[in-house]
């Protein structure tokens, strides 16, 4: 007799709660997926134009050589690192309340980790020469470091997210509670890697997952550091600062957590998961967010007060543009208001700390940090050491074209479509982690 994975009461309840998700989708769901697909196709059309005609179809020109793409790249990859760090820490330290959140965290990390690097590729002028990064690699270049850390990170997060799933795939394969077409059972069977829940298998999987969680933390810190050094190593004010790395780490982890709160809120609302994603979970996540956002606010203040107070002309010129309401002032101040000040106020008062409020500030923060990423990339490039003195407006000020918008929206749509399709395929609340309950 083959051994199958058996479920306890709590696990059975989760399977029953998630069961409707595995069924055929309704019309609204299909329309939503159709809309997202349309956005992705529109982005693909923009990409086709960019490849066929050249980067001239973007708003980037000789002064501002990096724009939406790089902003999106550092945004998504930062969120990915942040979510990966949270998942790894929650798993490694066996944080009791973290159990239902690890799955969503790992998925956010994995999906944003795939979307992010696509955007750095979009910024490369010659797709056909990408392999030169390997065959002609120069170890002195921070880009080579980044190629190394991102590729190893992607392997790491894929393995980690998958290891977290193996036991659940076995449950989905064996569960008599789910009515699944045979191809789905076969798929789960393949993905479960013949996991039968024997003691030896369980020890192996737990040990490997724990090792991966342990590896992921320094891996993520290294990846954060290298990415921030791409900017920090340059001579440009606004980039060439020691606090650039820490501020980037802190804000990215905060954004990752905000995004996880957002996904938790949507899943809870849509699938009625109040029992597993409780108000308490939201509050715990919010308190981590509070610490990170406060640190981000402090780093931001420290960064700009020093350059504003001192008299270095070049650096002051960048800061002045961020504060000037005719330049980037509105974007900068609103991003700080919605990304730092309002989240701190809402989380600081227990009465305001409701899941709905937290979801709202998470949404604000996710957008505000994107704006801050844009303000990291563009104003320093618009402020070269020598005067620009060019007749062409696009050489003075960056302004994204429809191609860039299309691809950025396609990036967001990719994120949404993954999170729309995933609950159809896998359980968003981990089941196996509750195996010790009621035993």
């Amino acid at each position, binding site marked *: 007799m083959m051994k199958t994975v058996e479920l306890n009461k709590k696990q059975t309840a989760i399977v029953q709660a998630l069961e409707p998700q595995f069924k055929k989708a309704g019309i609204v769901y299909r329309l939503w997926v159709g809309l997202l697909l349309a956005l992705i196709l529109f982005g693909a059309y923009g990409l086709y134009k960019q490849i066929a005609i050249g980067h001239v179809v973007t708003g980037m020109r000789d002064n501002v050589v990096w724009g939406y793409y790089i902003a999106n790249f550092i945004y998504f990859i930062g969120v990915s690192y942040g979510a990966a760090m949270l998942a790894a820490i929650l798993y490694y330290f066996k944080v009791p309340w973290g159990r239902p959140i690890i799955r969503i965290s790992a998925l956010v990390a994995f999906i944003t980790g795939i979307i992010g690097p696509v955007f750095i590729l979009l910024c490369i002028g010659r797709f056909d020469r990408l392999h*030169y990064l390997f065959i002609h690699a120069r170890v002195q270049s921070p880009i080579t470091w980044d190629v190394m850390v991102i590729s190893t990170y992607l392997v790491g997060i894929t393995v980690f997210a998958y290891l977290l799933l193996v036991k659940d795939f076995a449950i989905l394969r064996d569960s008599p509670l789910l009515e699944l077409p045979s191809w789905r059972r076969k798929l789960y069977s393949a993905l479960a890697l013949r996991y039968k829940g024997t003691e030896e298998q369980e020890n192996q999987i737990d040990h490997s997952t724990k090792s991966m969680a342990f590896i992921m933390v320094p891996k993520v810190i290294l990846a954060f550091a290298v990415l921030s050094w*791409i900017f920090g190593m340059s001579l440009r004010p606004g980039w060439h600062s020691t606090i650039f790395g820490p501020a980037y780490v802190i804000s990215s982890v905060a954004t990752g957590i905000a995004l996880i709160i957002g996904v938790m809120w949507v899943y809870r609302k849509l699938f009625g998961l109040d029992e597993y994603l409780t108000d308490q979970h939201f509050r715990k996540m919010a308190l981590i967010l509070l610490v990170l956002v406060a640190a981000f606010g402090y780093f931001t203040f420290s960064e700009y007060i020093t350059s504003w107070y001192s008299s270095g002309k070049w650096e002051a010129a960048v800061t002045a543009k961020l504060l000037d309401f005719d330049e980037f002032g509105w974007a900068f101040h609103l991003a700080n208001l919605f990304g730092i000040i309002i989240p701190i106020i809402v989380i600081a008062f227990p009465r305001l700390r409701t899941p709905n409020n937290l979801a709202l500030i998470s949404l604000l923060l996710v957008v505000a940090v994107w704006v801050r990423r844009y303000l990291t990339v563009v104003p320093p490039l618009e402020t070269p050491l020598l005067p620009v003195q060019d007749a062409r407006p696009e050489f003075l000020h960056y302004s994204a074209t429809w191609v860039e918008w299309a691809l950025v929206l396609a990036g967001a749509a990719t994120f949404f479509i993954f999170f729309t399709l995933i609950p159809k395929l896998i359980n968003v609340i981990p089941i196996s982690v509750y195996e010790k309950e009621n035993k």
Partner: protein
Amino acid sequence: MSESSENSRRDFLKKGALGVTLAAWGQLVFSCSSSGEGHEHGMAEQTDTVKVLTPDGQLVEVNRAHLMHAHHTQEVSYEEARTGVPGKKFVMVIDLARCTNARRCVSACQKMHHLPPDREWLTVKLMKDSKTSEPYWFPKTCFHCDNPPCVKVCPVDATFKRQDGLVLVDNTRCIGCKFCMTACPYSTRVFNWGEPGEPADMKTHYSSPETSIPGQVGTVEKCDFCPDMARMGKLPDCVTACPNGAFFFGDQNEDIVTNGSETFRFSELIAERAAYRYGEELGTEPRVYYLPPVDRIRPAEEALEEMPEERRKLYEDQL
């Protein structure tokens, strides 16, 4: 050693003299091609025929319409293009007192490298160091830094530093990540955002980092100090095109620079005229030295006044 350096110095001077001849010839060619621009800058009236000195020493009169830019390139191997001209250390000195923004250097450069009007490797900026100081024109080439931030960051060895001091770009290697463009504090590099737009016959030109021809879409390019000319002992086109002789080009090993008609000891020139390098504090060690704009041959404002209103607007922020 002394004999050989003496020889090469004489050789260089001889070649410098050839440069003068070429300069005179080149100038005629360029004044024809850029006649529209000439009017803009108050040049003499143009006529239909010009006297031209042929390479074999004959003075002939030809119709302007028949003039063609003849630019010959000495083809070298890829390895030679990467290592540089043996024994040389190219250097440039720009006399800011002599720059009147005639922009002949720019048009000569555009012509030489088959660049469209919207892609300048050489630019002339209007500078004003402080509120109380006078404005001056500032021709800016690539500085071919000895500690080049662009070369440091290149992930694929597409931009590189040669033994003769030049920083060049191999546009068949460049992946177009533009990291070098963000790294260069002098905004020297330009990108081929679309098709390079050079004449059709240039598409089949022999490809080398020494010429950056044919240009390639999605890659970076920049001022290269015309290394193919230097290899033949000729001066870069910006040097020969300047009507005021503001550019001096030469070899630091030989300690000599020339603008085609005047030749100086490099070390004496930069010492006596208190030369400086732009952005010295950045530690990039540029190979271009500027002579301060002392006793300018023409105030910067005069060139501004002659400009059409539209163009003058570009410089308003600086004044």
